[in-house]
């Protein structure tokens, strides 16, 4: 018999979330949003428990998690860096900014640095097209980021 292990308090919290949606399987995506809010990501154990609470297969839960780019099974860095790749940002040079981050952090998009400090991801249009190219570090928005400004941004967090 395989086991799933989670901290007790988080397990209860997770079950409460499912319950708050009446353990209704059509609320799966809302449940996943809340769960990701609690854990920061959606590890396999969390998906197992959600599957059980909503009475659906864990394969289905994973099918949904892996479909939507908002959901992640990897913990994010302490300072998650997201670079907008909307058209406006692209046209104004977001790709070069990504390359610069990759160079400095020595990680690829979707990865987290070894020290867990930064993770790198791309997103589509935060709607601040006037500020293109846009970079988000956590909640903080940096507008009109040029490749040579990348170092300075990173220095704020080190």
């Amino acid at each position, binding site marked *: *018999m*395989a*086991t*799933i*292990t*989670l*901290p*007790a308090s988080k*397990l209860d919290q997770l079950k409460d979330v499912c319950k708050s949606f009446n353990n209704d399987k059509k609320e799966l995506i809302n449940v996943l949003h809340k769960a990701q809010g609690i854990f920061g990501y959606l590890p*396999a154990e969390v*998906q*197992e*428990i959600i599957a*059980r609470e909503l009475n*659906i*297969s*864990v*394969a*289905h*839960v*994973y*099918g949904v998690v*892996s*479909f939507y*780019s908002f959901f992640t*099974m990897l913990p994010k860095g302490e300072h998650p860096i997201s670079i907008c790749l909307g058209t406006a940002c692209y046209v104004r040079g977001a790709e070069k900014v990504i390359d610069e981050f990759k160079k400095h952090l020595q990680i690829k998009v979707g990865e987290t640095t070894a020290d867990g400090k930064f993770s790198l991801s791309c997103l589509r249009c935060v709607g601040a097209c006037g500020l293109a190219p846009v970079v988000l570090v956590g909640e903080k928005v940096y507008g009109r980021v040029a490749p040579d400004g990348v170092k300075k941004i990173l220095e704020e967090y080190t």
Partner: protein
Amino acid sequence: METIKLKIDGKDVTTTKGTTILKAAKEFGIQIPTLCYLHLEDLNIENKPAGCRVCVVEVEGRRNLAPACATECTDGMVINTHNIRVLNARKTVLELILSDHPTDCLVCAKNGICELQTMAQEMGIRELHYQGEQSHYREDTSPAIIRDVDKCIMCRRCEMMCNEVQTVGALSAVNRGFMSVVAPAFEMNLDHSVCTYCGQCVAVCPTGALTEVDHTNNVIRALADPTKTVIVQTAPAVRAALGEEFGLPAGTLVTGKLTAALRRLGFNYVFDTDFAADLTIMEEGTELLNRLNRHLKGEKVALPILTSCCPAWVNFFEHQFPDMRDIPSTARSPQQMFGAIAKTYFADKIQVKRENLVVVSVMPCLAKKYECQREEFATDGNPDVDFSISTRELAHLIKQSNIDFMSLPDEDFDNPLGESTGAGVIFGTTGGVIEAAVRTAYEVQTGKKLENVDFKELRGMEYIREATIDFDGLPIRIGIAHGLGNARELLQDIKDGKSHFHAIEIMACPGGCIGGGGQPLHHGDSSIIKARQKAIYEEDRNKAIRKSHENPYIIELYEKFLGKPMSDKAHHLLHTHYFDKSKEITVE
């Protein structure tokens, strides 16, 4: 029903409203190619994601091409199924599928029976104009099934089977876009999932993405080993389907040729799982009556009793209803009863040591491969059944061994484990196990002779059937379900306290073993399964003895070895217990 008129390829066509273009065309002799579409009409199973886009046709007045499988005909529609626009689109789509598909066809398990390969051949694909990156995934080998999902074309048939028909939920489409594929949760191996190894995914996979674990080489090696005595048992559903592999029409019984072929392959003894089926009836039937009579006396016993000969079904309740694992009969499946008797009673009889006796089973089933590897079915690490091969694997073995199957004479099984009754034969179809049980239980319970052994009310293809059999004034309520989704319904009823049955027969595969995951591929033609069922009942009718307890070798086995049904010895060799396979949640 409203009748509508339309034109397909210039032909005037009349059909009823709601008919798809695909079906309407077929009625008029126009075969539009399909790949993802699957319709097992008699089993009410349909896969219609309209995803492959191979069946596109031109509908005049429509901007783009329409998938014939999922587009309903409307009055006045004008359809072209093969003009240049359609042909170019269809070929290009097929080329796209092929561009993300390995080209190791010559060494693929599905070589020659692959629907994608056939289509590429029929459409005259000679060059791939669009080549590029191919998607790669880890290969996954479980005890019964190999997933080589590089070959997955996202037809979603397996996903539909696993979820909608079987409600197992081991598989789901995962990821998105080019990397999307059908896989277990977290893309882990099947043996980490809730997979029951029913093999229905394999049975419908159009390509080599899902295949059985091939044990033919193990068998060849065992046969070649002079220190081993190799015996074989063959399940009832095999004889009703093997002929298809050699071009015979579905439903042709090939029992005699099958026996002859096995003998020519070099098996020392050719036995019949039907014998063990009869033995199962002795044990399971006794257990049923035991529980029933205790129930009638007012004792609290677990009722209804559920059959336990289907290993996928056993896996299913161990995963999904572990708290109800005391309800099924404890009787082992015929395959395992055979193995246990072969490696004790028979081994003694022929004076061969257990470890030098190799038991091979030929099964219509993939879950049997897993079942024979279960630890509880081994003694000192030596399994009761060494290898289980499928009907398809047997056909390969026969072909590899230069045996001209069609010219083989009809031969009989060897004794003592080759003699069986009609009751053992019908184990191969849905309804058969319980009918066999009734034939014996009736006579044991009432002490009267059963004149008519044909219980037609238990037969058929309906997914959930029920009947009440009069045991001389005592009404016995019987339920039957095939397809695990339907089994789930009956099980849920029991859990909810709503079940009124005394006994329930469950088979995991639609149609029962005749529709098993190890059978020759039906390629979407469900009439094949029906024909096999007909053949099974025909074999039953032709048998001289049709009640298990009348099998002379069974009688002898009890007299000389086991004593009585449910005796200690019988219990030790022929019964088992079940495990909780659900995942346990622990807290840190």
